[in-house]
């Protein structure tokens, strides 16, 4: 595990996202399920219940993959990274419309962008050889 950037990244990011998802529910008690403006996690990150579930699901997928194998971690990292990057691009086209169900704000963009870059980078760029699949 300690020799695999993909497993390390998936496990760390997965644990953080699960934690963020759980904490998010503490600040979204009275918020509609897909409200376009939700509560503020840590006073900075705007979240709503859908956002929390997305964090939990993504975190669980990353955590399970990271604890499973290099191949699983690499696949999930690349998919989640690409999805987050896409979310970042699409978020600018849907902001300010009723489709803004993910309560995007600047801090969210930072989190998503940094996550996307690390996960996509490690998923696509690290451990390209099949020889390390058994690490």
């Amino acid at each position, binding site marked *: 595990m300690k020799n695999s950037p993909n497993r390390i990244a998936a496990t760390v990011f997965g644990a953080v996202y699960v934690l963020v998802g759980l904490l998010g529910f503490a600040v979204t008690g009275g918020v509609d399920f897909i409200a376009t403006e939700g509560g503020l996690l840590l006073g900075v990150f705007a979240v709503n219940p859908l956002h929390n579930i997305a964090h939990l699901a993504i975190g669980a997928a990353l955590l399970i993959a990271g604890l499973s194998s290099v191949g699983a971690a690499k696949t999930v990292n690349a998919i989640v990274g690409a999805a987050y990057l896409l979310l970042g691009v699409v978020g600018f086209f849907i902001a300010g419309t009723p489709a803004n169900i993910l309560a*995007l704000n*600047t801090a969210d963009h930072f989190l998503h962008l940094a996550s996307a870059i690390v996960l996509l980078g490690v998923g696509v760029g690290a451990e390209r050889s099949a020889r390390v699949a058994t690490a």
Partner: protein
Amino acid sequence: MRASATITRTWPMLAALGGGLVGTALAAGAGGAPQVVLAGLGVAALGWGVLSLRAGRPLAPRIVLAASVGALVLAGGAAASGGLADVPGLPLAAACVFLAAVALSVARAARGARGAGRGPEASAAARSTAAPSTAAPSPASEARRSLVGLAVGAVLVAALATPALAATEAGRSAVPHGEHVAPGDEAPVDPAHHH
């Protein structure tokens, strides 16, 4: 030297991802020909970044160098002539920084490829003389370095790209204005912020 090279190896690709995001965000708020050019540049940068990450090296360095320098000259010329008066300054500057970072790295890669490409004997000799002088790092330390490099690069790119994205027309409407609005207690709609 080798450790720092491992850490920074992916940074040009990450810069391309940041530049691509800013380019597409600028395109979302632009219109006409600038929208097409910015969207094309943005998508191309994103694609090059992902493909180069996958390849583990900057792909097509000479073409990317020419395109990056051309885009920088074009942006400078358009800004000087007032053609980019409607484009916000911070995202444009950030996009230029990302482009310059990519251009510098691919210029180095192109120069390295030219030096190594003087003949198979020369590159084989270079490999045979360089390899024994550096002990191969352990897989664990190599993995840690590449991951640390990715994380630091990602934070640097996000630190520059996020405020730049927020300053685009699309980004300004993505930022919640004022206080959190409780459900059923809608804030007055400002038509100027809706597209």
